[in-house]
């Protein structure tokens, strides 16, 4: 039985007013974010939004220029052993040592983690159909992702970090990755943080999502909450309207004449009341996909 979400336990990740610049480009802009313990946290954003930079701070690969980063209550740059020993990480470019064989990769990684579970590693190797004698450089893209996933999972990390785990993979491998995420949080208290631009996947597996855009968090809430609080409504007015009348909570509007369509933040009932106040009737009202909500939010 999965534990209640969000959990009352102290958060896994706490980022406070983090800013990061590369030259004169601001990658992370005064960003604060808390990731609760347990469950799956999805980080969504377009290319160059700051997803990877943010993950690299959590892994202690980048030092905070201003602001602070705490993982398991520790500074990941000052205490790499205490933090990295409890994290499993699959990078977007899956940078694995190319010259090794799969068997060597497994033994090599094992040496870093006291909590390594050899039996589990072997189970995963078989389930993923990885040849122990194959060279990493000769693996197909999908097998490479599976090898990366194996070494990220086999020490049963408290926090599994996946950077764009599905990008460029076929549906069969994507299914393995989603399955690994689901099984990981099936084990009590484990947390998964993953970044993705495949929003249907995020919607399937994430408990919470944060939208990152231009180095800032635009929205951070439970997936169900986000979906229930965004509607697309079409209003019909008695008289022609030159421009769209202001609807409370509206994020976008388009249309002409008597009919105007809005994407708005609010529940069905609230929106209906707001429309009534304008003297209009709701002729169409539907929920939005996470994809549509994302596009609306980042194009504000």
């Amino acid at each position, binding site marked *: *039985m999965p534990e209640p979400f969000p959990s009352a336990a102290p958060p896994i990740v706490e980022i406070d007013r983090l800013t990061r610049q590369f030259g004169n480009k601001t990658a992370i802009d005064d960003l604060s974010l808390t990731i609760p313990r347990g469950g799956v946290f999805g980080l969504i954003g377009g290319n160059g939004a700051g997803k990877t930079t943010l993950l690299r701070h959590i892994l202690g690969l980048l030092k905070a220029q201003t602001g602070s980063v705490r993982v398991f209550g520790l500074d990941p740059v000052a205490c790499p052993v205490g933090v990295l020993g409890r994290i499993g990480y699959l990078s977007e470019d899956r940078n694995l040592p190319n010259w090794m064989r799969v068997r060597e990769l497994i033994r090599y990684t094992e040496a870093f983690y006291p909590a390594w579970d050899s039996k589990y590693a072997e189970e995963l190797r078989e389930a993923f159909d990885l040849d122990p004698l194959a060279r990493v450089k000769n693996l197909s893209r999908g097998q490479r992702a599976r090898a990366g996933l194996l070494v990220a999972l086999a020490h049963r990390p408290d926090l599994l970090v996946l950077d764009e785990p599905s990008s460029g993979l076929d549906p069969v491998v994507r299914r393995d990755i989603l399955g690994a995420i*689901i*099984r990981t949080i099936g084990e009590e208290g484990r947390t998964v943080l993953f970044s993705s631009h495949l929003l*249907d*996947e995020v919607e399937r597996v994430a*408990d919470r999502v944060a939208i990152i855009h231009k180095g800032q968090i635009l929205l951070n809430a439970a997936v*169900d909450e986000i979906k*229930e609080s965004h509607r697309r409504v079409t209003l019909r007015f008695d008289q022609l309207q030159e421009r769209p009348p202001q609807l409370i909570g509206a994020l976008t509007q388009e249309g002409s004449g008597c009919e105007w369509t809005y994407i708005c933040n609010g529940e069905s009932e609230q929106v209906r009341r707001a429309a009534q106040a304008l003297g209009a009737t709701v002729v169409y009202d539907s929920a*939005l996909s996470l994809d549509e909500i994302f596009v609306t939010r980042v194009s504000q």
Partner: protein
Amino acid sequence: MQIHITANEGVPIYLQVANQIKYLVAAGRMVAGEELPPIRTLAESLMVNPNTIARAYRELEMAGIVEKRRTLGTYVSDQGSPLARRERMKILSDRVDQLLAEAGNMDVSLEEIQKLVQQRYSVIRSSRSKDTNDA
């Protein structure tokens, strides 16, 4: 149990799961006393978050459609209860509402709708009896 999830749709996934189980029960495809799959099993087969399935089961439990038996699992409740009938009526009411809304948009009157329902009923019934005769 046959459930189909479409991510990236308007309806939250927990609601898709709950609605489809409600439908299966109302349609008699799941009967009283039948066990629902364990949360984790269903989560892995549908490739969705286990918390989502847990939420769907909680909704169904609150609606009286399923019941938890201590640690044994989740079972379909006794269907003799009036709740099941209420649930069926609710599903149909939603459909009727959609029909009426569309009819309103197309300027079709209630009398015409009623006539149409009667007509379609006769058509379906006669084609069904023809099927059984053929078989």
